[in-house]
């Protein structure tokens, strides 16, 4: 046997009818000019006949055809009646469905990865996605509150909200003459506990008794 390995492969594919048109034409040309190639092909055909005859005989003996027919009949009779019932669908349709499902999974993974990336970038910048959309909170400094009118001092007691449930809460501040401001001092700064400063500015009244 002097035929190269690639030619033997082509001949086997030719015998099985698996070659494309151009390759088949090439093998046809080879068979027309090469005796050894023709002998090899004849041998392959004879071998195939022997195999097919043997297989058919064994299948007939085993009742394969009856089994296949029975399976097909049962599948056709079957109706989707419950959880365990599977519907037989064409392979091409199932493959297309699976590919579509795979596409949706890929899109979901991509969206999740994008969201995770955005979260990590924002986190590395010291912000959070939620805080980025919310109005920015003022820095943790003292927040002045004016419980009484800043221009006209009021004698009416002003009820002021609590600053800290466990610390110091202001309940009332009033002044008949002076301007009053209230400063809530948050805890945590310089180790200070939360506290309240009532600022009674008596310059308007001259600081008298």
């Amino acid at each position, binding site marked *: 046997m002097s035929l190269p390995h690639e030619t033997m492969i082509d001949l086997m594919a030719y015998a099985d009818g698996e070659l494309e048109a151009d390759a088949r034409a090439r093998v046809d040309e080879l068979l027309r000019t090469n005796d050894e190639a023709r002998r090899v092909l004849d041998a392959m055909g004879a071998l195939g006949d022997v195999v097919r005859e043997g297989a058919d005989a064994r299948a007939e003996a085993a009742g394969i055809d009856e089994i296949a027919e029975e399976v097909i009949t049962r599948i056709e009779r079957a109706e989707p009646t419950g959880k365990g019932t599977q519907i037989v669908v064409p392979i091409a349709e199932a493959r297309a469905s699976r590919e579509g499902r795979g596409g949706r999974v890929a899109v979901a993974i991509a969206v999740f990865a994008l969201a995770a990336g955005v979260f990590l970038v924002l986190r590395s910048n010291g912000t959070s996605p939620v805080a980025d959309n919310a109005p920015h909170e003022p820095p943790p400094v003292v927040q002045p509150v004016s419980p009484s009118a800043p221009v006209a001092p009021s004698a009416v007691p002003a009820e002021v909200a609590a600053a800290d449930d466990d610390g110091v809460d202001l309940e*009332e501040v009033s002044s008949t003459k002076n301007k009053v401001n209230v400063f809530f*001092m948050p805890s945590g700064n310089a180790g200070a506990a939360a506290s309240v400063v009532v600022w009674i500015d008596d310059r308007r009244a001259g600081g008298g008794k």
Partner: protein
Amino acid sequence: MIARRRFVALAVGVAAMAWSLPRVTSAQGGKLHVEILVLYARKDPGGGHVDPQVPKIPQLSQAPFSDFNTYAFVDRKTLSLDAPKATDPWKGKPTATYALATGKSLDVVLLEDRTDKRFKMGAVIGQDAADRVRWIAPPNEPFFIAGQSYKDGILVIGITLRP
């Protein structure tokens, strides 16, 4: 095992006693005091200075106190809250009277011993209680009244209940 249980029980008992002791003391009355700290704060264009006598109070580093760069110690007194207040508001409540450096009077009043370990307090400054403040605070936590004119600055008054 028994020794360990006894030890745990003893520790729990001691902790419970330590927790309840301040409440018992304050609930019995007559043992509460008020500490009044008075500082003189001003803005010195030539540079800030803090009197060594000024106690280290973290709040002084925060606004609005941080607007002033010079603090001088004026006075620090601990007074008993056992005299019934003679006039309104809060007539009859245990009070302590203090004379400020400005000449005004400061009356500090104990209004209520609350169940949350805090105390309701009140203070009036000046004649006819021109300036009146009421607050709730735990013992040893200062409450500040500031802004009273004094020389070229203001007074900072820290009021702290001491059991």
